[in-house]
């Protein structure tokens, strides 16, 4: 036997495609798969949401968010706020919820609609509102979300997405990024939902005051101020463009014959 050492072709064990091209393809495929999954989840949640009875929702909510009594110095403001919410809600005759309002100790002006009929407003919102009418519009908007059961849908989507990801074993490290994104996507409402909530807020305002002055002023103020320096950055980032919403409101008011001017009541 004769020894003839030779070097074998080393390209055999190396991939022939460029790693970045391969990575790009892979990422695109996984993203497409993720989107498909998200769509499937959204659709199935849509079906469930309408089937959930209101009293079950209220019961669940009270277990998840145990009621926190407001402190003594807030009590007066809280009473007025509660009265305002209830007065506004009288414009919704089919209201199945016993609406409750809570004040969150946060400087950023914001308002949330939580399952079970809980309306959360921040101290920041109460302080920055220049009239009761403005505040009433924001509250009316949140009540509008309850009517569309938007809060349930968003939460349900977020939760289900997380659940699906966890069940297929994806949950650690960088892939968790996808899960968080899914949750955030679930918490923000769609354009249509926002538009419907704005519309309902407008109706409630008209019903309560006889005019819709609060809505007009609110958006004018938000739209005219520089987005960077506005006093309501959080509110804006979780909602669509204020200029668009202002235009929608004006259009709707004109359609329904609501007046956007009127006497404003002092803030709470």
């Amino acid at each position, binding site marked *: 036997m004769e*020894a003839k050492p*030779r070097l074998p072709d*080393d390209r055999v064990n190396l991939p022939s495609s460029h790693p970045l091209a*391969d*990575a790009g393809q892979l990422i695109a495929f996984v993203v497409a798969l993720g989107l498909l999954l998200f769509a499937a989840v959204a659709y199935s949640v849509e079906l469930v949401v309408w089937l959930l009875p209101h009293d079950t929702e209220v019961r669940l909510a009270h277990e998840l968010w145990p009621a926190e009594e407001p402190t003594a110095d807030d009590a007066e403001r809280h009473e007025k706020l509660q009265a305002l919410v209830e007065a506004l809600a009288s414009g919704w005759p089919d209201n199945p919820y016993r609406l409750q309002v809570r004040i969150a100790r946060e400087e950023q002006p914001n308002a949330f609609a939580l399952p079970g009929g809980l309306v959360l407003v921040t101290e920041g919102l109460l302080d920055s509102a220049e009239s009761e009418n403005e505040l009433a519009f924001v509250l009316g908007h949140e009540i509008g979300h309850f009517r569309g059961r938007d809060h349930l849908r968003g939460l349900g989507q977020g939760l289900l997405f997380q659940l699906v990801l966890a069940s297929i074993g994806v949950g650690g490290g*960088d892939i968790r*990024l996808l899960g968080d994104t899914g949750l955030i996507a679930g918490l923000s409402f769609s354009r249509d939902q926002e538009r419907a909530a704005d519309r309902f807020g407008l109706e409630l305002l008209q019903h309560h005051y006889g005019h819709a002055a609060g809505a007009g002023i609110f958006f004018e103020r938000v739209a005219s101020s520089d987005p960077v320096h506005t006093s309501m950055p959080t509110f804006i980032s979780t909602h669509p463009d204020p200029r668009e919403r202002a235009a929608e409101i004006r259009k709707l008011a004109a359609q329904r014959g609501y007046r956007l001017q009127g006497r404003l009541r002092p803030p709470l």
Partner: protein
Amino acid sequence: MVDLIVLLVLLLVTYGTGRWFEQRHFESIRQREAQLLPLLTSTLSTIPSSAPVERSEMVCGSVVVSLDYFKRFIAGLRGIIGGRIKPYEPLLDRARREAMLRMRERARAEGFDMVVNVRLETSRLASAAADGKRTAGVEILAFGTAVKLAAAG
């Protein structure tokens, strides 16, 4: 959104650094393989020569190669959809060849003519920090018997 941008930047940067190390390593490997070509290697236990053996000794070479973020990320995605993890293949190839080269360099340094009955062992070093789930590196060990033939005449 910021998280995604950070992720992309990290991926591109680690891809770049990983590739740079890889290219350099491959160049070095190819050079040394060409140099060491006369030093026979075989996985057979028989010696490919009729000349008598002067001395022999077991030699080994090993190397631990680390994974970079880009490779790990791709492996993570492949863990979902399955298939070949292409970035790992050059990694293991160079680790193997490096281990073999080190073994042969050792043999040459000691004055041997060839290495026979070469065996290769691969093992994964798990990261203690991530509960043993993350791979800290891959170790490849090459070992065989180095043989020196008696000089002719």
